[in-house]
């Protein structure tokens, strides 16, 4: 009797510069909730993305109900009963819920009226215990509602296997509880769940079995009642045990943090859909100070950073850098004041893929004006390459040929070298390996302490925020809900404040 619904054999996936999955073997049984744990970059997301047809494996096989299958696209995956719900709902904002969901119903012809599925949608949402108006445009929904629509979609398309990729992380606790109750009901009716979360405790509570991945390899599969949290942590991190403090705290008495470099007063900024992303945010950052903003992505942090840089319109409020009012002024003016910027999506807003390292440095007005002194640019490029161990054939290589991590290194090193008064850093160590991430954090600390650069650090990595900041602010739903000085931080309290209502 075959009780295995999904089996993965010797699956391998490589990206430029990194092996994401290395000969992974994995089995999912009917009716089970199977937790998938591992730290960032362990390969969990890659595995489910392959199962959902978003990535193609370099080698290996996938079996569903004992039959070998090849999954080439999400449509394929859905046909086989596999559905993925990820942290970022993949819905189209301008369309209504019904319009979004009808797209996946491949059995319906193209001329099917949208109204046809209203009934079924209402039925399913009742089962789920929620109220959904199929005629509402998706951009009007809250984050939680969007996640629920994703589940609705999976049910509508008859999914047998639900793959949940960190989708629960951002739900408020009562919603989360209901969500897990629903998952249990789903498995009792014969469905299976792969649950990816980094909350070890939650995974142990909810799962029937747990598989741990580390650096692309399967470490082991265990039952929750047979292991302790610490044992699981050992499996996830290996010999290294994460420490909160690995910097030597230096008391710099000489640097007087008197001057306010960045002042943000009652800032209101619109998001992309006509609603306010930043709602009345105020804070100050002094010379040499690091203010860390913790919070789940999508609560206004990006819009805040962009508005400070002059890339997004401020509706109300003021931004003052070094005494100059830069509210709604051009990015040119902000940069002239000596501001460095590590943006959220480096490939989108930070570097030009076709340009060489030299070009990407010379494009900054503060480095090159009029006739370019290429010898200077080249020497600067070489300095950055050696300091940060950037792997690149030459300073003239187009950046798009470098690996993701190296591209990030070019961006970060460039910005760190030009930021004088202020540095706005959004996820500065994303995609960086551990050693480089540490180096970057040390550089940021040094810039603040030795050069007096004020730093606004926005990061989704709470550990990073807690390590580097002098003050930690928590941003939730566009507001700063708390501002805590370093000495008084309790991690659990911060996490609680981050949860979106």
């Amino acid at each position, binding site marked *: 009797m075959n009780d295995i619904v999904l089996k993965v054999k010797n699956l391998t996936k490589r990206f430029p510069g990194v092996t994401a999955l290395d000969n992974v073997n994995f089995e999912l049984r009917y009716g089970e909730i199977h937790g998938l744990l591992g730290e960032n970059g362990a390969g969990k997301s890659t595995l489910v993305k392959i199962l959902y047809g978003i990535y193609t494996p370099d080698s290996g096989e996938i079996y569903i109900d004992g039959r070998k299958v090849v999954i080439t696209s999400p449509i394929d995956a859905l046909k086989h009963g596999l559905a993925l719900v990820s942290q970022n709902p993949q819905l189209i904002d301008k*369309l209504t819920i019904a319009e979004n969901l009808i797209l996946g119903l491949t059995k*319906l012809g193209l001329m099917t009226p949208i109204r046809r599925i209203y009934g079924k949608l209402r039925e399913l949402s009742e089962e789920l215990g929620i109220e959904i108006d199929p005629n509402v445009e998706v951009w009007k929904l809250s984050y939680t509602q969007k996640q629920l629509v994703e589940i609705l979609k999976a049910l509508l398309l008859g999914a047998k296997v639900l793959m949940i990729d960190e989708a629960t992380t951002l739900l408020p606790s009562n919603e989360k509880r209901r969500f897990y109750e629903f998952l249990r009901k789903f498995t009792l009716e014969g469905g299976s769940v792969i649950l990816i979360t980094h909350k070890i405790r939650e995974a142990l509570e909810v799962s029937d079995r747990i598989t741990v991945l580390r650096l692309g390899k399967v470490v082991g599969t265990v039952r929750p009642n047979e292991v302790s949290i610490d044992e699981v942590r050992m499996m996830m991190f290996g010999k290294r045990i994460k420490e909160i403090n690995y910097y030597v705290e230096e008391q710099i008495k000489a640097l007087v943090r008197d001057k306010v470099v960045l002042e943000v007063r009652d800032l209101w900024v619109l998001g992309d859909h006509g609603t306010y992303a930043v709602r009345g945010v105020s804070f100050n950052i002094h010379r040499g100070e690091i203010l860390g903003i913790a919070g789940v992505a999508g609560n206004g942090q990006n819009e805040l950073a962009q508005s400070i840089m002059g890339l997004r319109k401020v509706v109300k409020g003021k931004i003052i850098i070094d005494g100059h009012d830069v509210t709604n002024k051009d990015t040119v003016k902000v940069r002239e004041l000596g501001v460095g910027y590590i943006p959220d999506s480096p490939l989108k807003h930070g570097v030009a893929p076709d340009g060489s390292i030299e070009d990407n440095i010379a494009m900054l007005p503060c480095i090159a004006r009029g006739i370019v002194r290429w010898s200077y640019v080249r020497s600067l490029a070489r300095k950055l390459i050696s300091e940060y161990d950037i792997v690149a054939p030459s300073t003239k290589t187009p950046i798009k040929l470098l690996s993701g991590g190296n591209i990030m290194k070019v961006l970060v090193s460039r910005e760190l070298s030009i930021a004088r008064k202020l540095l706005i850093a959004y996820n500065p160590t994303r995609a960086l390996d551990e050693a480089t991430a540490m180096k970057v954090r040390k550089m940021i600390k040094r810039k603040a302490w030795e050069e007096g650069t004020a730093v606004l650090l926005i990061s989704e990595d709470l550990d990073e925020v807690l390590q580097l900041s002098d003050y930690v602010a928590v941003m939730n739903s566009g507001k700063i809900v708390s501002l805590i000085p370093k000495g008084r931080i309790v991690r659990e309290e911060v996490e609680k404040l981050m949860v979106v209502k």
Partner: protein
Amino acid sequence: MDTIIQSILAVAPAFTAYYLTALGHGFFEKSGVLNLAIDGVFYLSVAVAYASAVYMGNPYMAIFTSALTASIFGILLAFIVTKLPISHGAAGLSLMFLGYGLGALIGNPAVFRFREIKMTNIEFNINIPRTPLTNVTLLLVSIVACLALLYILKGTKLGAAIRASGEDPHAASALGIDVLKIRLLAGAIGYALIGIGAAIFELVWLPTWQQMHGMGHGWIAFAISLSSGRHPVLTMLTSTAFATLLTYQYLLQAAYNLSPEIAKMTPFIAAIAAMTIFMVTPLRRKLSPPLSLGKIFFKEERTL
């Protein structure tokens, strides 16, 4: 009263020609493909309509060949830019030039044939006569086209799929549609309408042909579509404005004592003006273009 109705109906040929072209163009662009080939294919379709009418002796069949030719180009453009990571602008412009070339090579010989036929049969003509019946039919066709497309776009899965492909083809793909198939359909239907519009332009409104005939008028339809936010109903308004201007151009000329060159310039200046007005007003926000219009749709597997 009669003359008023007559004057209104007189606008019908120009109106239908530009409206159907703009309607088809907007429909296609809603699927996310930047359609810069419009003028080339419009010009080609005009030439094909003329040539078909000459060789087949029947203008009504010419509408069909014109629509078919245009449709093929639409499918080609949709295919190239969706299957391959090619810049929409480059692909569109290439097809535009091809359309110009083919159109001239199809139209020129047809002119000779026309003259030959005329010598033996003085009554021969390629146009569809402008009777009140024709005008009313044209208007009805426009209205039917408008309603049909409106229904498809807002009420059917196809419409949802087209708009999804235009907003976010990656998400659309993840949601379960074959973006390529949808864009091919949008290209076929949209360009068929452009072909019909071009045929009306040639056979009803300006039934003549010389080498530059119709060149640039595809761009006027482009502007008509853009300045009405690609909305089937609003495009009727902008089309009416332009059609009125073009139909009564001679009146304008006489009233202001303009040179014919200046008069011919007015629709083009109006096109730029219309686009400017649209972009300057809040209309731009409400009727925003598809978010991924012109963006290269290519599945890149990167971790960053």
